[in-house]
């Protein structure tokens, strides 16, 4: 995923300047992806170069308002219709750590699992608190839900590891 697609989505709803884009981007991702204004303007400049957006007049405060182009809309259509590939995601350190713990004979794997499980549960509690605090904004809630499902999957996998290793012993 790129910031550029996120910004294109916001621009597809109407012309906006950089600060507006930053605020709306953060609101729709549940503040889980903070942007600095430099990133926003760098991305806009690249998209302008690629013909996806057009700068317009400056407003009274000197801020340039950007508009999405037809090419920008086409790019957005392509993005939404293309599924995300698993291999595009980075490797998971926890998975590697556990595999290595099993390989290295002297490591207490059960303890590694236990420590991780408690830490993951604390993270899950924090996410749930954050979700309860969201009073409006379905997008925000769904972003948090995604993180909750992911943490939950990790927790289940840890339980699974524990059960399998218990049998092996």
């Amino acid at each position: 995923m790129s910031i550029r697609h996120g910004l294109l989505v916001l621009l597809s709803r109407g012309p906006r300047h950089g600060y507006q884009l930053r605020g709306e981007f953060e609101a729709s991702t549940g503040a889980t992806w903070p942007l600095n204004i430099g990133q926003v303007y760098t991305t806009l400049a690249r998209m302008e170069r690629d013909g996806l957006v057009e700068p317009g007049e400056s407003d009274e405060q000197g801020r340039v308002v950007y508009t999405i182009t037809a090419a920008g809309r086409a790019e957005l259509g392509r993005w939404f219709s293309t599924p995300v590939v698993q291999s595009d995601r980075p490797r998971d350190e926890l998975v590697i750590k556990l595999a290595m713990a099993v390989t290295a004979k002297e490591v207490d794997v059960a303890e590694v699992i236990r420590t991780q499980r408690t830490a993951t549960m604390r993270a899950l509690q924090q996410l749930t608190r954050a979700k309860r605090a969201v009073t409006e904004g379905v997008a925000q809630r769904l972003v948090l839900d995604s993180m909750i499902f992911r943490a939950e999957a990790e927790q289940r996998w840890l339980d699974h590891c524990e059960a399998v290793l218990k049998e092996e012993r």
Partner: protein
Amino acid sequence: MTLVRLAEVARVHGEGATAVPALKGVSLEVGAGELVAVMGPSGSGKSTLLNLAGGLDRPTSGTVHIGGQDLATVRDLAALRRRSVGYVFQDLNLIASLTAAENVMLPRELDGVRSRLAREEAMAVLTEIDVAYLADRFPDELSGGQRQRVAIARALVGERRLLLADEATGALDTRTGDEIMQVLRARCDAGAAVLLVTHEPRYAAWADRVVFLRDGMITDSTSESLVSAR
């Protein structure tokens, strides 16, 4: 205020060669306003723990206090349970021939409360959790989530402030499950104590404290405030 306290509780099922230890020295407290979740695989002792905390069973050794009363000194456990403890189970056992309101009234009527007052209390608690409009429906006219809400209302009716839930979100989809957790959480924030047994991490995460049960022992907890982690 502590509403339930287990101290070094052990429970052995059976005797002699066939004895099976279900719990091996568990200490746990749940205070007013607190939601505690117990997680563990099947066979870890979750249900035994819940039964002991709710006075449905007595420990082999150790002590259980409910609302300050030592269970060992209580003769009529059934009466203590009706007065102090509410239960929400996965197979929630609403009585099919009674309406939602009548189901909620039942524990109060068993306590000897007159049916008019019992009905007022039932309506009050149904209103509190936003299901007063379901009062006159029968269980088979309710969705899974609605039935679970009625079961929670029944668990809370009257003066009871300790609520024990066993896989209360069991058969529900995740969105409805979240709504049920919202109700339990709100009850806690209003001063109830909830002890929830679940194997689903996403629901355990609504708790203030999550304890992990393995082979009859508490092996870990997300909070340091636990009296004894072992």
